[in-house]
C-alpha cells in the first residue's frame, strides 16, 4: 500500500516514465489559469501523498541509488527534450518536469516533506507564471509558438521582460531560489552522482539561449498588439521579487 502511494505520488511530482501522465494532464487542461493552478497544486498534492507513502529512511541502499539515478535521468531527459520545444507552454512544462525531478533526489536524501513543499515551489511558481504569460502571449499573437516573429520586445516590452525574468527564475539562475535548491541538493549527493546532475547546467543554458534567441532577436513583422497591463507586470515583478528575497534569505536554510 505504501509503495502504491509512493508510485502514485510520482504521477504528480514527475518521475520518468510516470512524468508522461503529469505532462499529458497539464496539456489537456483547456484554460491557462487552470494549467497554472495545476502547475502549482499537483506537485504539492504529490508531496502530501508522499508523506503517507514509503519513508525515505526505509529505502535500502540499492533502492535509494536506483531512485536517485531515475530522478537524475528524468531531469536530464526532460531538460534535453526542452531544447527542441519552441512553444512556450510546452517548453515550460518540460523544464518544470526537469526541475521537479530534483525534488525526488532531495527526498531520497532524507529532506522533510514540509521543506520539500517549499523547494518544489521554487520551480512551480515561476512555471505557473510562465504558463500565465504563455497564455497572454497566445491571446495577443494567436499562439505561444516562438520563432516565427522575433524581437517581441519591440511590440510587447513588458510581456517580454516578464518572460525573460521568469525564465531565468525557472532555470536556476542565481540568486533565485531554484539555484540554491540545485546547489544544496548537489551538496547532499555522493560525489559520483554530482557530475551527472550538473549536466543540467549546460542543458538549461542551451535551452534558455534558444528560447531567448527566438524571443528577443530579429525583426518583428506582425501587427501592433496591446502589451501586458502595468498591473499585471507589477504582479509578475512582485512575485519574482518575492522569489529573489526567498533566494537571498532562504538560501542559508537550503544550503
Amino acid at each position, binding site marked *: 500500500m505504501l509503495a502504491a502511494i509512493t508510485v502514485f505520488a510520482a504521477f504528480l511530482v514527475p518521475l520518468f516514465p510516470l512524468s508522461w501522465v503529469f505532462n499529458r494532464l497539464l496539456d489537456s487542461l483547456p484554460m491557462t489559469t487552470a494549467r497554472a493552478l495545476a502547475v502549482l497544486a499537483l506537485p504539492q498534492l504529490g508531496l502530501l501523498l508522499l508523506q503517507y507513502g514509503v519513508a525515505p529512511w526505509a529505502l535500502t541502499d540499492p533502492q535509494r541509488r536506483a531512485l536517485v539515478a531515475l530522478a537524475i535521468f528524468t531531469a536530464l531527459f526532460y531538460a534535453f527534450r526542452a531544447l527542441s520545444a519552441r512553444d512556450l507552454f510546452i517548453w515550460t512544462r518540460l523544464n518544470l518536469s526537469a526541475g521537479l525531478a530534483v525534488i525526488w533526489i532531495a527526498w531520497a536524501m532524507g529532506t522533510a516533506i514540509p521543506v520539500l513543499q517549499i523547494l518544489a515551489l521554487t520551480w512551480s511558481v515561476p512555471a505557473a507564471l510562465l504558463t500565465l504569460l504563455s497564455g497572454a502571449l497566445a491571446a495577443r499573437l494567436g499562439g505561444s509558438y516562438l520563432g516565427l516573429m522575433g524581437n517581441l520586445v519591440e511590440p510587447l516590452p513588458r510581456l517580454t521582460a516578464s518572460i525573460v525574468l521568469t525564465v531565468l527564475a525557472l532555470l536556476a539562475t542565481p540568486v533565485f531560489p531554484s539555484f540554491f535548491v540545485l546547489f544544496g541538493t548537489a551538496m547532499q549527493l555522493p560525489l559520483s552522482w554530482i557530475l551527472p546532475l*550538473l549536466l543540467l547546467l549546460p542543458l538549461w*543554458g542551451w535551452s534558455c539561449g534558444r528560447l531567448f534567441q527566438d524571443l*528577443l532577436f530579429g525583426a518583428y513583422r506582425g501587427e501592433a498588439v496591446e502589451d501586458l497591463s502595468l498591473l499585471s507586470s507589477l504582479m509578475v515583478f512582485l512575485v519574482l521579487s518575492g522569489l529573489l528575497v526567498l533566494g537571498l534569505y532562504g538560501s542559508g536554510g537550503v544550503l
Partner: protein
Amino acid sequence: MDFIALGIPLLPLLSALTILAFLRQRKKAAARLSVAALTLAFLLAAFFLGRHLGGSGDVLMQAPGLWGSLWLDPLSLILWTFVSGISLIVHVYSVRYMVEEPGYPRFFAMLDLMTAVILLMVAAGDLITLVVAWFLVGVVLYFLLGHDATRPAAGRYAFWTQITYRVGDLPLWFAALVLIQSYHSVSLPVIFARIGEHPDVLLWGLPVPELCGFLLALAAFARSAQFLLHTWLPYTMDGPTPVSALMHAGIVNAGGFLFNRFAPLFEHAGWALHWAFAVGLVTAVVGSALMLIQNDIKRSLGYSTMGQMGFMVMECGLGAFPLAVFHLIAHGFFKASLFLGSGGVIGEARQRDGVPPDPVYTSVVERRPIKPSRLPWLVAASLTVLVPVIVIGLSHFFVAERLFYEQGVIILLFFGWVTGAQALFAAHKLSQKDPWRLMSGILVSFVIIVVGYTLISHYFGDFLYPDRSESLRLYEVASIQHLSFDLLALLLALIFVGGWMLTFFRESLDWGRRPGGRWYGLYLGIYALLSRELYVADIYQRASQILLHWSRRFNVWLGWC
C-alpha cells in the same frame, strides 16, 4: 571602516537598480548616475588598495548567512581597482558613443550590473559567492552582447558565449562541491588552510587538490577562451564596442584570476599546472596563427586576445602566477585602448588617407620609392637572436637572480627571447635608408620595455604574494624532471633557431607559395585549415544539430509529453 568597502560592488548595483526602476526614460540622468557611481567605486577601490599598500592586512568580511563574504586581500584589491578603472573608462566612453542607440539607459544599467558582478566575483570570500558571481557574469554578458536586438547575429554570438560559459560553470560547481564535501567549509581561507594541513585527502584515488586543480583549470579555460573552448570569443564583436572593450579587457581575464585565487590549491596540483601549460601553449600558437590569417580586423583582434589568454594561462602553468595577473592588467589596458580607439581610427581613415595633399610629395613618393637597404644577414642574425637573450637575461639577473633557478622562468625567458627576436627581425625586414638608425632605435625601446617589465612584474609579484616561499612553491610544483626539462629546453632552442632560419630564408627560396612547387599542397592545406578556423565551430554546430534532431525525435515519439 572596512564596511565601507562593501560600497565598491554595491554602488554600481544600486545605480543599475535605480536606472531600471526610475530612469528608463531619462537618458542623461541615467548616464550621469552610472558614471558617478563608477567614479566613486573606483576612488574607494583605489583608497583601499592604498591602505593595504600602507600596511593594513587582509580583511575577511563575513556575511550573516552561509555565503556573501568578501575577502580583501592584495589580489582582490588590485583587481577591484583595475576592473572599476577599466569600467569607468568604458562608461565615460559610452556616454557619447551609445547616445544614438536604442535602450541607452538599459545599456548603462547592464554595464553597472556587469561591473558589480565582476567586483563581487574577484572579492568572493567563499565558494558559493564565487559560484553565484561566476554564473551571473555569463548571464549579464549575454544581455550586454545582445543589446542590439534587431541583429540576429548579435543574439547568435551572445548565445555561443553563454553556452560556453555554462559548460565552463560545470567544472567550477563540481570543484566547489568536492572542496566543500572534502574540507567541510565554504570559506576560501578556511579551505586553503585545511588544504595546507591535509593535502593528501583522496577522492577516486586522486588527491582532492589535484582533482580540483584540473576542474578549476577547465573552468578557467572556458572563461578565457582556451583552445576548443574558444569559438565564442572572436565572434563577440557583434556586441557594442564598449562591451567588446570591457570583455576583452576584463571579463575574459577571469581564468587568470581563478588560477591566482586558488593558488594555495595549485601548490598541490602539479599535473593540473602542466596541463594548463600545454593548453595555454597550444592556445597561444593557434590564436596567433588564426589572428594572422583573418581579413576582418575585429575578428583579428578577437584571436589576438585568444593568443594573449593562452600566454596568460601558460604563465600560470609555469608557476608564474603574479606575472599572469600583471599580464592580464597590462593586456586589459592595451586591448581596451585598441577597441575604444578603433572607431576613431576607422573614422579618421575614411576622412584622411594619410597622404599629404601635395602633388610634388605624391609624385616623389610614388615614382621614386626608397631603395631597400638591409643589414647583412650575419649581423642581422646576431642582433635579432643574441641581443634579446642578453638583454632579457641581464635584466632578470640584476632584478632577481634566484629566479634563474626556476624552470618556469627559464621557459618564459625563451618566449621573451622569441618575442624580442621577432620584433627585431620585423624591424630588420623594413626597408630603410639608414637600417642602423632604425635598429638602434628598436634596440633602445626593447631594453627600456624589458627592464621596465622585469622591474614592475617583480615588485608586483612581491605585493601579490608577500610570502616569497609561496611563489617559489608554485614554481617548484610546476617544474618537471631535470632531464626532461633539459631536453625540452633543447627542443625549444632548436625549434626557435629552425623557425628563425625558415623565416629568414623563406622569401629568397620562395617556399610553398608557387603553384606546382614541392610544398604548395601542404601550404594550401594549412591555409584552408586555418581559414576555416580548424573546423572547430563547424564540428560543434554539427554536434548540436544532431542533438537537437534527437531531442525533437524523442518529443515526437512521446507526443511532446
